[in-house]
């Protein structure tokens, strides 16, 4: 049985289609990422899978339980860390966790042990007695991740887990997530619009744009589509027979020359640079500068959508604002 199974899921808000016919499966224990710009439909997908929203059509199931019909069973199996803070700031950190544990019907001893354990995991034991309103953004996030784990869910949803956090805290949270996925059996589904986050954390990624999946696979597979690393060589003077020689090498995928710069794509570029230098030397060509660029998921996104994720976000927020205006107008 799949941990998560989604089949032709569609969600419409009036005339706006937030999730547009997506299907995917996630295996137990996998760390799966939904990557895409804000407004791509990631959160809507999570809200449907966590029973907070009903789909317009299509199905979703968590360990065989249908998300729109067996809500109670689905809820028992999942933990959710929402995009926006969902803590009671007038309670202490520990009280938030205890509230959660009791809502999930945990017994007294189990509750005490587990709350202690997760507080240690996210290093909040010392601050547990303080009101959450005194916490920093990073501490709140860590508390929420801890809370998502208290009842030992089989599937953990993390919606933009590091949104708005500084680089150091983000790195910290990445480590928790990795550790968690490695040490417990929990299946994690994570959404992000940070390319490097998805790249670093996820075993498998689906790139989402305008409610649709545009590509999916492991980060490596996705990047391989681009043909590997790009090595640029800046040459001085005539290139002689070098280009002809390089063209004959089978590990070079593509070769282009713009002015004095040779751009080559290949796998594992860093290991090939010495060879390239030697070849240039042998052909009496002087290399003045070498540049290696690993393709990022940003390039993959660009490749599939023709836009960078930032462009897409700008136009997306424009559209959201227009939508909000429309909605407000209707209400009055």
């Amino acid at each position, binding site marked *: 049985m799949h941990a998560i199974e989604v089949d032709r899921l569609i969600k419409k808000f009036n005339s706006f289609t937030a999730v547009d016919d997506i299907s995917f499966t996630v295996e137990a224990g996998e760390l799966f990422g939904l990557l895409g710009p804000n407004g791509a439909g990631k959160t809507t997908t999570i*809200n449907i899978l*966590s*029973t*907070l*929203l009903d789909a317009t059509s299509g199905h979703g199931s968590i360990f065989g339980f249908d998300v729109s019909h067996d809500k*109670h*069973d689905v*809820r*028992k199996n*999942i933990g*959710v860390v*929402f995009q*926006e*803070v*969902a*803590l*009671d*700031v*007038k*309670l202490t950190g520990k*009280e938030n966790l*205890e*509230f*959660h544990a*009791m*809502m*999930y*019907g945990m017994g007294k001893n189990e509750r005490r042990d587990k709350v202690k354990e997760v507080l240690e995991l996210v290093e909040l034991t010392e601050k547990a007695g303080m009101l959450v309103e005194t916490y920093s953004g990073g501490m709140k996030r860590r508390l929420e991740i801890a*809370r998502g784990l208290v009842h030992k869910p089989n599937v953990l949803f993390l919606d933009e887990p590091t949104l708005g956090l500084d680089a150091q805290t983000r790195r910290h949270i990445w480590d928790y997530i990795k550790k968690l996925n490695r040490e417990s059996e929990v299946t994690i589904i994570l959404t992000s619009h940070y390319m490097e986050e998805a790249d670093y954390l996820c075993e498998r990624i689906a790139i989402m744009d305008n409610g649709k999946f545009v590509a999916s696979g492991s980060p490596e597979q996705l990047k391989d589509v681009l043909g590997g690393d790009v090595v640029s060589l800046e040459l001085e003077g005539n290139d002689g027979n070098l280009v002809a020689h390089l063209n004959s090498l089978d590990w070079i995928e593509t070769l282009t020359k713009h002015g004095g710069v040779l751009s080559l794509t290949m796998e594992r570029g860093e290991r090939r640079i010495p060879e390239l230098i030697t070849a240039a030397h042998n052909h009496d060509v002087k290399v003045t500068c070498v540049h290696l660029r690993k393709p990022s998921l940003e390039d993959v996104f660009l490749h599939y959508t023709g836009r960078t994720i930032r462009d897409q976000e700008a136009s997306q927020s424009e559209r959201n604002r227009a939508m909000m205006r429309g909605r407000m107008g209707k209400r009055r």
Partner: protein
Amino acid sequence: MIIQGAAIYVLWLRELKRFSRAKSRVVGALAMPLFFLAFLGLGFRKMMIPGVSEGVGYVSFLVPGILGMSLLFSSTFGGLSVLWDKEFGFLKEIMVAPVSRVSIVLGRLAGGVTTALVQGISILGLSFLMGFKINTIVALPLALVFMALISISFLGLGLIFASKMKDMQGFNIVFNFVIFPLFFLSGALYPLDNFPVWLRYISYIDPLTYGVDGLRAVLIGVSSFSVLFDLVMMIGISLMMIFWGAYFFEKSKAV
């Protein structure tokens, strides 16, 4: 659906903790009724109001009305507080838990009734200091029953509004066009007999009318209807409000 005791208990506990920590909320909730009581009581003390017998006096007549007002305000706000949870995201945490929606409503009710009763009892206690007297001590438990029923009714009403509203924007509308008219129509400040007949009929569909009348009956022995009638009406109304509140809450979305 199932009733989950632990979830109801923890929702109740949360409400109590939040209440006890919000000192300004407690003070504010007590101050307004006491100001009403003090200023209206002193201002109208010497006035002869038709329907208020000389033996009773306006202050005594007013105390049950102000109790009703306090319960009306705090309970409707209690029901509407779902909107605060929605605004601060905590509602999602509640809604995604494997807890039946009925249990969630019951937990909120338990918390709301408890905090409303704490306020009501405080006001009653303070009014004793101001010279309010009751006929028999037996009146107190009966008054508590009425207070609880008033509270349940308006928690249900608040919950209905909260389920229908998207955010706190409509708050003022509810306050001005629902809560205040309910307060004035209930006869909390004056005998309903002074209303023109058509207005009196409108006041009969106000749940608070029976609540205040019942409180007056048990506390000072003056009322328009019999205690039993008030009690039956209040039980019926509170059940109906809770049913509707739970129904609309069940249908509402957290996101």
